[in-house]
């Protein structure tokens, strides 16, 4: 039961992120919520690979035949973190330019493209 706690928390984090993205109007806040959502996905991935009593998947110095947690999900998480950083940087630089041009960060006012 306790072993499943990370999954629940990951799902809750995802829900918190979605709620924040849908209910907040400031763009920077939306990016913060996006980061939380992404962290939730990362936590979910890492928890998938966790084995009770496993050790880190590093060959140096580990006893022979020890139970290891799964390295695949860690590689996936790492990739996702990299992608997330790139996305965050791109979106935030967009927001900075947008604020200079529009004078606001409120998504209710950033809607020149409509109809």
């Amino acid at each position: 039961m306790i072993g499943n706690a990370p999954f629940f928390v990951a799902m809750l984090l995802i829900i918190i992120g979605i709620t924040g993205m849908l209910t907040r109007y400031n763009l920077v806040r939306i990016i913060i919520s996006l980061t939380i959502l992404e962290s939730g996905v990362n936590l979910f991935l890492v928890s998938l690979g966790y084995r009770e009593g496993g050790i880190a998947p590093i060959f140096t110095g580990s006893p022979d035949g020890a139970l290891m947690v799964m390295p695949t999900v860690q590689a996936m998480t790492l990739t996702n973190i990299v992608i997330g950083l790139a996305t965050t940087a791109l979106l935030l630089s967009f927001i900075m330019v947008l604020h200079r041009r529009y004078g606001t960060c409120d998504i209710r006012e950033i809607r020149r493209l409509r109809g």
Partner: protein
Amino acid sequence: MILLFPEPFEICVLVLAVLILVALYRLVAGPTSPDRVVALDAINTLVVGIMFALGVIFRENIFVDVAILYAVLSFIGTIYYAWYIGGRYT
């Protein structure tokens, strides 16, 4: 001689984790921005302590690398917050 008594380290880790939760109160309630940054700094220091102790519990010396990095990088974060707060932005 393997692992004579890791239990003190485990207790230590638990107590520090509870302290983190306590420090979160200041992060929530801190009336001003510097207060929150102070709380963040406290959390960082505690986490570094936890990581030191976990390095023993997990019996992996390479885990301590993470703690060193953590100490350095949290410093950078703190400096950034201080830079922003000191700049008199509204």
